[in-house]
């Protein structure tokens, strides 16, 4: 196992030194950044908190950073933490009553869905400042400015790799900590968990905060990397579902699941996009949609889930 991880790590250090195209590097960066966001989602999702509201956290992180930069010239080094803090605050305002009043299942999904729409619509409504549904671009500075958090592609690769790795470490630590066994108990049977003295509300809020904060961070970075923000692609139902699907198709119970989900969804999207070119606009996401449905019907534990299950059976 250790060898596999070392090999993977080493392989990921190589791309900037290889003669690969800008485009390939771009895809790798996107995969890493989104994988980070998907990983953040599973920190909640795997404990039965299936949130359709992560678009809200993503949107808060990305828009706070960009707005503070454009309007007040505040460096993303302060903007990002402020965006994260806002996301955490919102997560608490929604998460606490959800846990307190035992809002679960369909209801949890719909509350979070409402939340993500609230954020998206607020961004659209505040069009004088945010550019509304036309989107916005962070003010440009010459490349590789640490203050502005704007880099060349190669630097971005290192940044993306770094946060992705941090995301995995956090996932692992949450997985290892006491929280996990407690949360497993919670997602199975909340009353039973409370009966053995597990503070359900506190555990739920902890994972919610971690997940929201990481998602906002990911959102802020994606906005900085793409240098273009749009409420439809960075907040709202669309992106929320995209996050959920990628996490589920990869597998939310395995550490690399969300990453595999990111590779799968992004590479697939890009492949289909290149395959169909501009001839059949919509063909790529059509096939993508069908594959999502098939995944949920036939492989609800995701690719990694199925692989892990196979390996376990082989060993047994």
């Amino acid at each position, binding site marked *: 196992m250790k060898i596999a991880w070392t090999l993977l790590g080493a392989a990921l250090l190589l791309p900037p030194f290889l003669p690969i195209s800008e485009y390939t590097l771009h895809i790798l960066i996107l995969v890493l950044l989104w994988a980070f966001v998907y990983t953040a989602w599973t920190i909640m999702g795997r404990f039965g908190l299936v949130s359709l509201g992560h678009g809200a956290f993503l949107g808060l992180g990305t828009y706070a950073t960009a707005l503070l930069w454009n309007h007040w010239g505040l460096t993303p080094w302060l903007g990002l933490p402020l965006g994260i803090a806002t996301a955490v605050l919102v997560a608490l305002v929604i998460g606490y009553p959800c846990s307190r*009043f035992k809002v679960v299942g369909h209801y949890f999904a719909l509350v979070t869905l409402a939340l993500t729409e609230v954020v998206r619509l*607020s961004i659209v409504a505040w069009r004088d400042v945010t550019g509304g549904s036309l989107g916005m671009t962070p003010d440009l500075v010459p490349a590789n400015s640490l203050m502005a958090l704007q880099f060349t592609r190669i630097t971005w690769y290192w940044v993306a790799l770094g946060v992705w790795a941090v995301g995995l470490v956090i996932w692992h630590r949450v997985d290892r900590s006491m929280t996990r066994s407690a949360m497993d108990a919670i997602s199975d049977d909340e009353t039973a968990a409370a009966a053995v003295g597990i503070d359900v509300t506190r555990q739920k809020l902890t994972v919610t905060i971690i997940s929201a904060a990481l998602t906002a961070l990911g959102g802020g970075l994606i906005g900085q990397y793409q240098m273009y923000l749009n409420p439809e692609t960075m907040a709202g139902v669309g992106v929320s*579902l995209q996050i959920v699907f990628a996490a589920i198709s990869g597998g939310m119970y395995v550490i690399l699941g969300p990453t595999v989900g990111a590779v799968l969804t992004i590479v697939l999207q890009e492949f289909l996009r290149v395959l169909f070119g501009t001839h059949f*606009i919509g063909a790529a996401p*059509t096939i993508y*949609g069908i594959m*999502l449905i098939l995944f949920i019907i036939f492989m609800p534990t995701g690719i990694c889930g199925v692989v892990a299950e196979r390996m376990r059976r082989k060993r047994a």
Partner: protein
Amino acid sequence: MDIFLLEAVVNGILLGGVLALLALGLNLIFGVIDVVWIAYAELVMCGMYAIYWLYAVHGVPLFLAAPMAIVFVAILGMLVHKLIISPILGSAPINQLLATGGLLFFLQSFATLLFGADFRNIGLRLPIIEIGDLFISFARLMAFSVALLGMVVLWLFLKRTYVGTAIRAIAQDREIMVLMGVDPKRVYLITSALGGGLAGLASALLVLQYDVHPFIGLSFGPITFMICVLGGLGSMIGGFVAAFIMSQIISVGGFYTSIELSYVLAFLLFIVMIFVRPQGLFGVKS
């Protein structure tokens, strides 16, 4: 009262009719099959495109195109159940919700593939009715009336017929339906067709007022779920009342602020309500 405010209130009531119809369809499916079709509003979009295609592209008269669209969406509803829901009926409810979420992606993209992302209009100009200083769109008035009529017909069906009674009964005790000689699978399929048919009817009413584009479902979908939950998932009267509450918030709120902020208000109200009264206005406490 300010005449424009009055107009907003009237428009809110008229909008409420169509939203109530949509909520009813979704509620029916939830009550009977216990699944949330996240892609419900996308079925409405399909119906709108069907009418656009029949009427504006092929010149089929509206009074024929509308029933054809209703049948088309009803069949779509059955397909959704047969192909997507039925294979995973036994798995976690959240999976069913997500599978229809995949359908949402699919339908949006497929519509883009067929019709492009442009806004399409059936190009029918309906008159504006003047009552005193009040201007009311005929299309909206008609949509409201037909929606109410549709709900009455549905109510009679549920109240009078054997299958309708079975649809109401199955939500109350799923297991013993078999003892009554009811095949639950058949009831599920009929309910899905009904839910689809209602979406089809709504599409016929909406296409008179709005342009159709692949993402139009997103403007009706979320609010429809909120209405269902606010009224109490599975409670049809609750959904009806909640539809009018939400439509007033949207319409009057939109009058005072902007359309987006009025939706924000509606969603915030929903979030608060779910904490204060999770079973909804008329829901049965489980």
